[in-house]
């Protein structure tokens, strides 16, 4: 009645719009009057953690405190276009744009510091903790605040644009370099299938996600949890039930999403292998964390009951009719 099975699936995912479609993110870094730094970028926080990632990348590049960065990402009136928050492209594309803008900004700061400190070169200047120092003598320094007070007209700011490298594929053969970078995932689940009710319980799950470099490990874990959830839900629960073009399950009482009692804790493994074209090696993972889940569950179901579910969703009634079909075929 209760059968156990294990299932494995691996997958990969090419980041971005791809195929030579212009995949551009822009960012602006500006020095505020109070010595803090504003980042202006049109990338959207949809819950994935983009804002936090942007700030971490900026803080790292500028070598300043998180609290000294003010992020503006909501209003088109003051933010440059950073593309869509989709295709797992914000960390990679917009992250790169922010990093580039911050690097330019550092050069601008050094040039300004050279002027203020009466140096003959920007050589040996380092930026750290909202100050520009001369490496050889810590006394020769100028703070961001002082630089800000030296700005007479307009803004002290830098702007950068990043375009992902992709190439349009050959129309007849599809050969080419459609996406970059690729991100890899693996998932193994163990399930219990009730052969009378068709209910599938996931009793154990492990998920390994290549992240390039983890910007914020806890947020990555949150993405893996959520991606697994959505994969599980896609495979076993959600069903719009479209009949004659009409969505029959058009409310939450009919369109079933798993509750907290239908999910389990997942073993999460973050695999780091920095990607050299990515900001600090970090790849986007928002989508990859969903992809191998459904096939891993389907493979586990097969392992448990020797029945292939070729058609999603694997709802309890579908599993029962698939079992019945196999049974009657066996009897023939």
């Amino acid at each position: 009645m209760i059968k156990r099975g294990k299932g494995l699936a691996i997958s990969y995912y090419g980041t971005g719009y791809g195929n030579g479609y212009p995949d551009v993110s822009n960012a602006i870094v500006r020095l505020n009057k109070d010595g803090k730094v504003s980042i202006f970028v049109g990338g959207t926080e949809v819950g994935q953690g983009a804002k936090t990632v942007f700030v971490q990348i900026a803080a790292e590049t500028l070598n300043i405190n998180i609290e000294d960065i003010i992020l503006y990402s909501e209003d088109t009136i003051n933010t440059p276009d950073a593309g869509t928050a989709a295709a797992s492209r914000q960390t990679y594309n917009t992250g790169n744009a922010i990093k580039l803008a911050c690097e330019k900004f550092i050069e601008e700061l050094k040039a300004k510091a050279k002027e203020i400190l009466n140096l003959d070169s920007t050589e040996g200047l380092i930026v750290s903790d909202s100050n520009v120092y001369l490496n050889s003598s810590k006394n020769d320094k100028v703070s961001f605040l002082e630089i800000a007070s030296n700005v007479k007209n307009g803004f002290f700011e830098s702007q950068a644009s990043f375009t992902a490298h992709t190439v349009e594929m050959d129309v007849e053969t599809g050969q080419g370099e459609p996406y970059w970078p690729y991100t890899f995932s693996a998932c193994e689940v163990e399930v219990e299938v009730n052969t009378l009710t068709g209910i599938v319980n996931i009793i154990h799950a492990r998920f390994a996600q290549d992240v390039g470099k983890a910007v914020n490990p806890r947020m990555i874990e949150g993405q893996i949890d959520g991606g697994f959830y959505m994969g599980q839900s896609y495979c076993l629960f959600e069903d719009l039930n479209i009949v004659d073009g009409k969505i029959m399950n058009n409310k939450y009482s009919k369109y079933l999403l798993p509750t907290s009692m239908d999910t389990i804790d997942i073993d999460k493994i973050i695999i780091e292998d920095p990607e050299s074209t990515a900001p600090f090696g970090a790849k986007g993972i928002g989508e990859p964390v969903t992809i191998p889940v459904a096939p891993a569950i389907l493979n586990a179901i097969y392992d448990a009951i020797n029945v292939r579910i070729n058609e999603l969703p694997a709802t309890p009634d579908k599993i029962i009719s698939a079992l019945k079909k196999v049974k009657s075929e066996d009897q023939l």
Partner: protein
Amino acid sequence: MINLKINVNNTDYEIEIDEEKRLIDLLRDELRLTGVKEGCSEGECGACSVILDGKLVNSCLIMAFQVNDSKVVTIEGLSEGDNINYIQKAFIEAGAVQCGYCTPGMILAAKAILDKNPNPSREEIRMGISGNLCRCTGYEKIVEAIELAGGYLNGTKTYRE
């Protein structure tokens, strides 16, 4: 229109409201307590959860006139300014927040759990938030947050500096 008296987040109100309005309409449209979220309007998602006379309820499934002389706590009642309570703290620290739309309801569900039992098991926590849907987190970090909050409450954990 009807008149009703209600205490929300320790403030007394006398409100004139349309007979057809629900508790959620009263809280959002009249009192502008927009931390009360509407996600499904049928008691499935729990985003509109509030604590009514000590009990966790869906404010979309209660008519406003029914709550005359009642006491309601919404997410806005848990903190003062940036001075947040231990559950809110735990949610931030455990990374239990993603898009944030389920968060107020989840935190109130957590409060309902912890008000009864400062030492809930993970199973009890999962049961306690099983009327609150979350589409982003897969619930695990939320369960962790409530466990952590329980630790703050029963003294086995101390606040992170």
